């Protein structure tokens, strides 16, 4: 259950609101692919238009990581970015989070142009978890609220709720190095959830984990996030993860990354372990692989 914060500024979402019918459709069906174009949805939360991102190499050269990317994400939707290694997925996600300034194009979140980090609207989970090694599990979660100047008493309460939600209540006073990889990952998720942001950006959150742990966490994450009803943009390498978690998958091309194809995932929700290997899921996975393989030959 999501913790509530009456004083919260910025974007509010109602947990009682019905999920958008489109992406959460329960009808069984084959993967629907559509040409890369921004889809217009009624409850649009993220809107990206002709986005381009560049970064400077240490030797002074400039590399275009993202080129002319346009898409939008509806409220409560789970969108996955998948693409060849080093294609610019992380750059794209960082631009969405306001962590890097785009070279061109526009990003709007809840109708507001993104000019920098938006801690009241967007929470971020990093590939390497980005936990502060000198802070206990509790303090690692609490810092999200500290930085927003939430009063101490409320901070303590919400922190413990978030830790309980991911099953880390017992280890609140341990340091990250004393936790297993899976626990560290859940701690990072707890920190992202505690601030009640409507949007979660997850950059390969399971990348550093072994196969078994990532499958278990994937199921747990999908259940947790479904109950929390957040809008999610997720970056992954794993096709299986992408199909299992997403409403929609954006397949990206090689660097500079563009949207090659959009793949809808019309699998029913809630999805449990039994959906991991469903026939429809496998068909979408095969389609994704075909697209990525095609890209690798280019």
């Amino acid at each position, binding site marked *: 259950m999501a913790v509530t914060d009456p004083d919260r500024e910025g974007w509010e979402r109602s947990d009682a609101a019905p999920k958008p019918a489109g992406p959460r459709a329960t009808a069984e069906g084959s993967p629907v692919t559509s040409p890369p174009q921004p889809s217009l949805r009624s409850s649009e939360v993220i809107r990206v238009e002709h986005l381009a991102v560049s970064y400077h190499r240490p030797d002074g050269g400039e590399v275009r990581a993202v080129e002319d990317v346009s898409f939008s994400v509806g409220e409560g939707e789970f969108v996955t970015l998948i693409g060849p290694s080093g294609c610019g997925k992380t750059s794209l996600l960082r631009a969405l989070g306001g962590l890097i300034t785009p070279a061109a194009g526009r990003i709007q979140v809840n109708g507001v142009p993104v000019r920098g980090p938006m801690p009241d609207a967007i929470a*971020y989970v990093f590939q390497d978890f*980005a936990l*502060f090694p000198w802070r206990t599990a509790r303090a690692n979660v609490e810092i999200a609220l500290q930085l927003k100047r939430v009063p101490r008493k409320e901070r303590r309460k919400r922190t413990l709720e978030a830790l309980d939600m991911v099953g880390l209540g017992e280890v609140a006073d341990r340091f990250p190095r004393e936790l297993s990889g899976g626990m560290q990952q859940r701690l990072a998720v707890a920190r992202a959830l505690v601030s009640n942001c409507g949007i979660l950006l997850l950059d390969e959150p399971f990348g550093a984990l072994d196969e078994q742990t990532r499958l278990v966490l994937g199921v747990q994450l999908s259940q947790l996030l479904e109950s929390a009803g957040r809008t999610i943009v997720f970056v992954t390498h794993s096709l299986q993860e992408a199909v299992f978690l997403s409403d929609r998958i954006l397949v990206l091309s090689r660097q500079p990354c563009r949207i090659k194809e959009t793949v809808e995932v019309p699998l029913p929700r809630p999805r449990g372990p039994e959906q991991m290997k469903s026939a429809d899921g496998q068909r979408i996975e095969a389609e994704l692989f075909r697209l990525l393989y095609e890209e690798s030959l280019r």
Partner: protein
Amino acid sequence: MSRSPAPIGARLAGSRVFIGLLLLCACVAVWQLVTTVGSVSSFLVPPPAAVAGVFVSVMTSGTTYSALGITMVEIVAALALAGGLALAIGVPVGWYRLTQQAYEPLLANLAAVPLVILYPVFAVVFGIGPLSKVMFGAATAFFPVVLAVVSGVAATNESLVASARSMGARGLTLLRVTAIPSALPVIVGGLRLGLTLATLAVVGGEFIAGTRGLGYLLASAGEAFETRKVYAYVLLTLLLAIVLNSAFGLLVWLSRKVEER
């Protein structure tokens, strides 16, 4: 039947304190041996017992305490000045890759300059009173501290910075929650080295040209050929260094507490 507790001797033998004391006793024993064998003049190396006697008499004298106080204040002031300046310069230099690449080698080269050659300048500019010792101590201690700050801050995990930014940390807050705590162990290491150098510089400064402080007392005793007194003051300087160094553990512990709140 329950196991009986280990004899106190065995427990003591395993403790770190005991091992440490053992070394200390060994040193005193060697010292005693050297003096009793008689190969070294007892004027140059007086026996431990004689030095202990003089140490006790020195410690009952008011002049010692005022000198000790002066030296301590000079060292602490020198280190505080060096630390403050090192943070003010080192944090921005280490934070940006360009400034780090431009200035770190420069600072490292400057650190290799033996500043003692500049001591006459310090004495001329700041006089032979405590101020010149503080400034000289600060200048000497500055380099190891600033180098530690620069390398510590530069080594801050980029992903932690991005994470803190995504949670809304900006400006000084961003530094306070990322670079400073991340660099703290390295900075403390630099400060320890700085403390050693500040002590050296301050006592040395008093020794070369001073009117007060432990170094001045040491120099006076030496000039009067009172070697026992010299050793007593050396012992006192040693104790002072140990006390100041131990104060660091407390400082680190406190800063951790403040950061976590």
